[in-house]
């Protein structure tokens, strides 16, 4: 797993290129994410978005998924569990209200897709150490096995939401890695300044763009 972004609250955005600070202003936090799926282009699969609390005492958190730019890859209506509502064709929201909160969308992969994440909730201002985790995985259509991971017990994208901090990690396999099912070779895009070192490590895995 590679920790590649640790984002701050909006009020402190830009305070650190590494985003290591936290703040007290509980305003939504927005990220734009681009994923290169060239090796999977033309195959079917699933996009699995989850937002699950660790325990019942985890503060409220929700995420809105918007601006999904590859409408043509979406196939049918999503499967919604727990606190999930909406659809990627428009705007979908997942709330950490249940033990399992998820949106599962069938897709026909193209060369890439992108979307916007808007995190909100009381966790942004809570000191609680009981967290919530956002995750995205690319799944095989029948077996539900994760695709494109270097660490089979990890996630394609993991976002840890705890004590007002959002930190992302990825266990996506590097492009061209032997045995990797997929890879993403698009350059980092977006407005979020990603440290050069991280960018190299990611091998152009994906790009997140935080938007005010």
């Amino acid at each position, binding site marked *: 797993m590679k920790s590649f972004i640790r984002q701050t609250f909006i009020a402190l955005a830009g305070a650190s290129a590494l985003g290591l600070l936290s703040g007290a202003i509980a305003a939504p936090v927005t990220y734009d994410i681009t994923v290169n799926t060239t090796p999977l282009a033309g195959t079917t699969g699933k996009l*699995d978005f*989850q*937002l*699950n*609390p*660790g*325990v*019942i*005492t*985890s503060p409220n958190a929700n995420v809105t998924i918007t601006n999904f730019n590859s409408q043509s890859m979406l196939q049918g209506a999503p499967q919604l*569990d*727990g606190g999930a509502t909406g659809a990627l064709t428009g705007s979908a929201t997942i709330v*950490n209200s*249940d*033990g*399992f909160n*998820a949106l*599962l969308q069938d897709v026909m992969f193209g060369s890439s897709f992108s979307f916007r994440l808007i995190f909100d909730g009381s966790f942004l201002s809570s000191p609680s*150490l*009981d*967290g*919530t*985790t*956002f*995750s995205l*995985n690319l*799944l095989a259509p029948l*077996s*539900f*096995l*994760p695709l494109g991971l270097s660490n089979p*017990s990890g*996630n394609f994208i*993991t976002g*840890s*939401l*705890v004590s007002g901090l959002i930190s992302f990690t990825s266990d996506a396999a590097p492009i061209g890695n032997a045995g990797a099912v997929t890879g993403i070779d698009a350059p980092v895009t977006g407005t979020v300044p990603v440290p050069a070192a991280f960018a190299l490590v990611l091998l152009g895995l994906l790009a997140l763009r935080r938007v005010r």
Partner: protein
Amino acid sequence: MRIPFAFTAALRLIARAAAPVLLLASSAGFAAGNVVISQVFGGGGNTGAVYKNDFIELFNRSAAPVNVTGWSVQYASATGASWQKTTLTGTIQPGQYFLVQEAAGAGVVADLPTPQVVGTIAMGGAAGKVALVNNDVALTCGLAATSCVGNAAVVDFVGYGATASNFEGAGPTPAPSNTNSVARAGNGCTDADNNAADFTAIVTAPRNGASPSNTCGAVANAPVVATCPATISGLANTAATTNLGATDADNLVTSATITSATVPGISLVSVVPSTAVNTALQAGLRVNAAAGGYTITVQFANDATPAQTASCTIAINVTPPAASARIRDIQGANHISPLVGQAVTNVPGIVTGKKGNGFYMQDPLPDNDPATSEGIFVFTSTAPSSVAIGDAVRVSGNVAEFRGGGNAATNSSLTITQIAAPVIVVESSGNTLPEPILIGIGGRVPPNQIIESDASSGNLETSGTFKPATDGVDFWESLESMRIRFVNAVAVGPSNDFGEIPIIGDNGAAATLRSARGGIMATATDGNPERILIDDSLVPPPIIPATSVGDRFAEVVGIVDYSFNTYKLTITQPLVVIPGGIVPEVTVAQTQNQLAIAAYNVENLDPNDPPAKFATIASQIVNNLKTPDIIGMTEIQDNNGPTNDSVVDASTTLTTLINAIVVAGGPAYSFRLINPVDDQDGGEPGGNIRVGYLYNPARVTFVDRAGGTATSATTVTNAGGVPVLSASPGRIDPTNAAFNSSRKPLVGEFLFNGRTVYTIVNHFNSKGGDNSLMGRYQPPVRSSEVQRTQQATIVANFVQSITAIDPKANVVVLGDLNDYEYSPALTILKNAGLTDLIEGLPENERYTYVFEGNSQSLDHILVSANLMAKAAPIYDIVHINAEFANQASDHDPEVVRLTLLPPAADITASVQISRSGLVLNRATGVFSGTISVKNTTAATINGPINVQLRNLPAGVTLSNAAGSEGGFPYVSGTGPIVPGATLTLPVTFTNPARVLLNYDVRVYSGSF
């Protein structure tokens, strides 16, 4: 009386010239030119005749030649007077014969010897008249009125057959026939002018001029004439006497002497000199010799001066007596001789080795059946001084099967086939010994697994098929008492005080499951029948060199024997050791948090042992065992060892050892034990062997609980979930009959790193009384297992009385359990929740003892389930004794290192806990997340770190739990956590209902 020749010749001339009647009446006279008819044969060529011609044989009985040229022999029928004549020519020398061949008959038979004159007269076969005439004029006489006798021209006249009308003297000669002639007595010398007396009928034997001459009247200074058989035949070593004799016509024969080389067993006996001239000296030639051919010359001498002698040469052919059986017939293809109880005679063999009570012999002419041994032991009871190695002997005696230890049914020993009450005859010495049979590659390969496969009755002597190709005991039996040879033999056990070394051949090429150090493993299914024990039982005893496992011998030659319940190779030539180079092992020292517990059978240790033994064991404990924290000792004897008195205290024994350990650089151990009741625990009489503990008080604490005695049984009570011993040290059920004449288990309670460890040291009853591997009862009955099983059951029950109170109790059962890991006794202990650590070793490392070359496990350390789960036992058998010629004990010690960390401390208040959100893996159905623990103190928190999750919702399981403590699962991290640092541990849950989780977290430093 002898008549001077000249005188008698004169008388004859006078008589013939002047008075024929007188001549007829006179005694035999000789004159110069006195030629006589010496033989007449008229049946030539007739039926039954040997010769085809008639003949008239003349003989010159005088001392001067006689020219018979112009003379004639004439024939007339028995009653006729018509004479036919054959003219002679030639000279007859003194003593010479002169053969005149006449007409041939019709039969085709043999020719006469070459005649001097050939005539054509057909003579009467049964009667007739023949005259020797000194001219060539036919006679006209021959009838009664005109007798030819007295005719001046007639030199000699013979009327033969009853009907002859004319003859000399009183009557004609006896009648000849087709097979007989009539011959003049004295080979022609006798002439009393009486045809009836002078002639006899003989088997026709014509003599001619080439026949040996015959000197008439040459009787002066007669020679000694020996009478001996040309040949004598007899049986070896069987006395027989043949009569010899010698006569002398004019002297006494007075002596007989063997003049040829002396032959043992051949001599003259009963020599009786002659007592009168012309009577025989009589002697016996006694032959009682070994088989062979001999030529003996016997010389006889008379009393003349100088003595005359005569010798005769006798060929003596002595043949071996017939053997009633060969060795292979006695041995048979079985363990018991088919001739047992029967007498055998003259069994041949070459002596190959001698013992104090007999000798081995082997047939030099083996057959081709490998199942029947060609060797046998001859039991002489005392040292067999009458034979030497290389002697060819014949043995008669009774076939017996000797079973060492007696024939009681409880004795599983096999037998040795032997000839008892022997009568031994040495036939020759210095013979080449039979070539030894090569055992192994290129020769006879012993079975390497099966000892006996089909003794259906349980006794191979009464059931089963003799299969030397596949069954080990049958293989060696087929070679019993034979010479065999190994090449590249390797020792699989050390030399011992009995002069034995177990070996296998060919560097163990065909052996299965060798130990890494050169031994060979005994398993439940492999008793290693390819082994045999070198032994030194021959006389003089060979030197057995100090030998350790893995040492080798380029060649071993000896005789297959069986004694003390196994097959032996009694060597006949010295051994040369090629060192294998094994060295005593050294174990790894325990770490700070490792409790090292050893088990060591010190083989009857007592203060009377040499100081070197104490020093060696002390050094082993310090340097090889690395000073274990606890040592379960077995075979500790009392303060005066085998002195059989009432002393039972062993404090001196242990103090002596403890002091030696200090001298060797080790710690000052303490000890705990309970003295036994005198003479109640078996072992060496008077020694009062017992078990006990040495422990290092600097590392462990012995928890003393008073009350333990030799006869009191320790109990276990439950004190709030904690097992409490009624006594420590304490004996376990010491009065139970299961421990009769056996050591009583001793339980002790120790503290290490704040943790309680219960140890039970044992010395179960020995294997005495078990059937031997190479015995008659197959498969062997291990009767001693019964008592060990009872003992194991008692110990197992005691262990369970502890673990029933605290399933996580730390219990160690150790010691000399005198049995294998797969035995019933060990199975009982394992079924009580104990793990036999030896089973964690590779199969070829599971040995603490080497018995007759079989590496095997007798000593064990077993641990309870909690120790297996938590203490990461590291077990090691330290090979320092059992494989070595020089050993402090016959057992190898064993050590286990148990990692026992201090008990876990609840540090929840000292950390900050963060629980991440979860992600469901849709393929596995498992939720994953993390729990992070941050050290909020200024001190380092030592590992391991255990994070316990309490009160998870129903249906939710911590699927990656490292364990459960107090009913709550936990995950573990190594730690430590320095101040301010965070330890993050993954957690996974199964949550089929996908409920919101709710649980408490407790964090512990240290192991549960």
